[in-house]
């Protein structure tokens, strides 16, 4: 396991130059490429096939629809990508997402500004709690975020009178417009997701923060020995994940103009699936933000296609998603093993 992690840190993750410098053969280079860009290729393939097979798939309305539905999951998955690259995991995002939406509707009773700031503050606080417990308390992220999954859901139930109150957002308020309005044909949440992903790409590939995230995921011990502020970075990653989940929940609530309490159950699984399908290793130390976007779109396109077929029950969607996830990780495992064999030679 350590050998695997160290291999990832010594090359093959950040960009093509280091891969070439590491002296890979053509086959290894190809394996690494499939790992990093495979999801994009499959996405393109699925889109092409669907466009040919279904008349209603390649329409502007449908593309707008898919983009809108993807945007919320994409924002959640962005924060998750950073956490997973650092070798952690955040199971609390589904609950935090729901909590964000409910708090937004709660704050909107006062003003739009409060409706935006309240969920960000509380969800950021939960992310910070995760981060402190994982980074400074040195507790297993899996369990810490499992606890906050329960805790955030409990908090949500408490402020909605055990889930009996669904607060509506006033029509025409700024936040409601942000959720429902469009710009150049695409909804504002889509644009927000696009901007966040652009920031995410730069953050991961071009900043010290991003590089240290990858280093921590590759080997926490090595990162500590190198003098990186491991605990502080780790804490910030969970804070970021809490914030993105809260923001996504806020936007989703604004889109539907109500703070629905039952949303977000199992959302963490979709987000993790999208990140893993996007080529990010769950062991940490390697991954791309762009891959996550492709993973999210792939999940939503598959969902869209199953809806298009019509005769298939919607239950097949989760079957296909699950099967897809299993296949992707199996291929990933095979590739990284082939890659390791190549490097040992």
């Amino acid at each position, binding site marked *: 396991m350590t050998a695997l992690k160290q291999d990832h840190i010594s090359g093959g993750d950040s960009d093509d130059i280091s891969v070439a410098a590491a002296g890979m053969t053509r086959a290894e280079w190809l394996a690494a490429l499939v790992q990093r860009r495979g999801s994009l290729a499959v996405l393109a393939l699925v889109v092409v096939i669907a466009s040919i097979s279904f008349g209603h798939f390649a329409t502007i309305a449908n593309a707008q629809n898919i983009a809108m539905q993807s945007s919320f999951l994409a924002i959640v998955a962005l924060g998750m990508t950073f956490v997973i690259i650092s*070798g*952690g*995991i955040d199971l609390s995002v589904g609950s935090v997402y729901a909590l964000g939406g409910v708090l937004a509707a709660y704050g909107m009773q006062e003003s739009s500004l409060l409706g935006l700031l309240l969920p960000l503050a509380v969800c950021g606080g939960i992310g910070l709690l995760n981060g402190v*417990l*994982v980074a400074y*308390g*040195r*507790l*297993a*992220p*899996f*369990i*810490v975020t*499992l*606890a*906050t*999954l*329960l*805790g955030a*859901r*409990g*908090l*949500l*139930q*408490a402020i909605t009178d*055990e889930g009996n109150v669904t607060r509506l957002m006033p029509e025409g308020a700024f936040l409601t417009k942000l959720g429902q309005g469009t710009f150049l044909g695409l909804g504002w949440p889509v644009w927000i997701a696009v901007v966040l992903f652009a920031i995410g790409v730069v953050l991961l590939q071009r900043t010290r923060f991003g590089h240290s995230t990858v280093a921590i995921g590759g080997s*926490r011990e090595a990162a500590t020995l190198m003098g990186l502020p491991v605990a502080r970075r780790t804490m910030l990653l969970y804070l970021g994940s809490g914030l993105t989940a809260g923001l996504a929940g806020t936007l989703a609530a604004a889109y539907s103009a109500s703070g629905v309490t039952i949303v977000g*159950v*199992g959302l963490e*699984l*979709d987000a*993790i*699936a999208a990140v*893993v399908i996007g080529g990010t290793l*769950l*062991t*940490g130390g390697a991954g791309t933000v762009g891959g996550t976007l492709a993973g999210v779109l792939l999940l939503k396109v598959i969902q869209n296609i199953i809806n298009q077929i019509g005769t298939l*029950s919607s*239950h*097949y*969607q*989760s*079957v*296909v*998603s*699950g*099967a897809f*996830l*299993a296949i992707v*990780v*199996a291929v*990933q*495992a*095979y590739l990284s*093993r082939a890659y390791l064999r190549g490097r040992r030679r």
Partner: protein
Amino acid sequence: MTDVAVRRDTARRWLRDNGVYAAIVLLIGYNLIFTDNFATVANLNTQLVQVAPVLIVALGMALVIGTEGVDLSVGSVMAIAAAILPLYLGYGLAPAIGLALVAGALCGLLNGTLVAVVGIQPIVATLALLVGGRGLALVFADGQLKNINNAELLDLGTGKASVPLIPLVAAVLAVVAWALVRHTTVGRTQVATTGRTVRPVLLIVCGIGLLLLAVIALSTGTRINVPFIVLIAAVLAVLVWFLVRQTTFGRQLVSVGGNRAASALAGLPVRRVLMTTYVISGMLAAIAGIIATARLTASDPSRIGELFELSAITAVVVGGTPLSGGRVRVLGTVAGALLMQLIAATLIKHNLPPSTAQIVQAAIIVAAVYLQRSRSGGGQ
């Protein structure tokens, strides 16, 4: 280390190993004094019946966590078992239950193959089935809730077995005595210092004596009514405990969890052990699904087993099994499940909303892992 540090470390270790039992004793004490209608047979039965499905799933989860893995798919496997049940009830109860169990075993086999042969991390491998399994269950059931009319199955859910009290107590005492001799420091020291082992002949004589006692009690003794579900959970707990502590497989499992590479070098069948473990977890989840269906008197594949993976992991972790593998605490897992149930029951009986129970449970999970921190090395 200074004296104080040593003492603090010892205290923490004691709390880690026995905290769950101490918490149960404290909570029961609190309830006996402050809660009305707590110490009644009806309440005891209700609580035990409620905790049984979680407990059964947690037993399998403890085994998987002992191999340094985790099985997130248990809730979906429960749903699959529940969905299959009504499809074959027409052929009788036994074939229907048999097929549900086979389905559970197949799910476990899939998980085990992905983990042991393909080499995927357990979280992702079982996540795939968690996502896909419930969809599959809904496809089987055509997305519908089906009422169960089979009398035998309904009886399994609500019926009670009349168990004679004296042999039950005798059997429990015998098991406890045996466990004390074989598995505690006190018993081992005793055996070591006296240089004597308990002779098989002696055990057989004791066994015959107990049997005689049982026959006498059966004909005359007092009986108590135990719900079938509780009986099944208890038997499964004993079986899993036996499996871990008394069989080659159990030793292999713990060894693989402790150090997979070393186990492979030592010639243990690592793959087979891992696959068997996931199959057992799948089958236990299927049993829990059947029981939950019988209790609900309906097969509800969209809801059954929801978030059970979390409850099961909680029970295992609170019970003191480290997430880092290499150790399985079956009794601790039972206690962990009981503790979480007791907490929820206590809060509800004092009219606190379920949301508070959730927040308290979250805090307890964090406290439990915090206590384990020193052992597992913590962190990522």
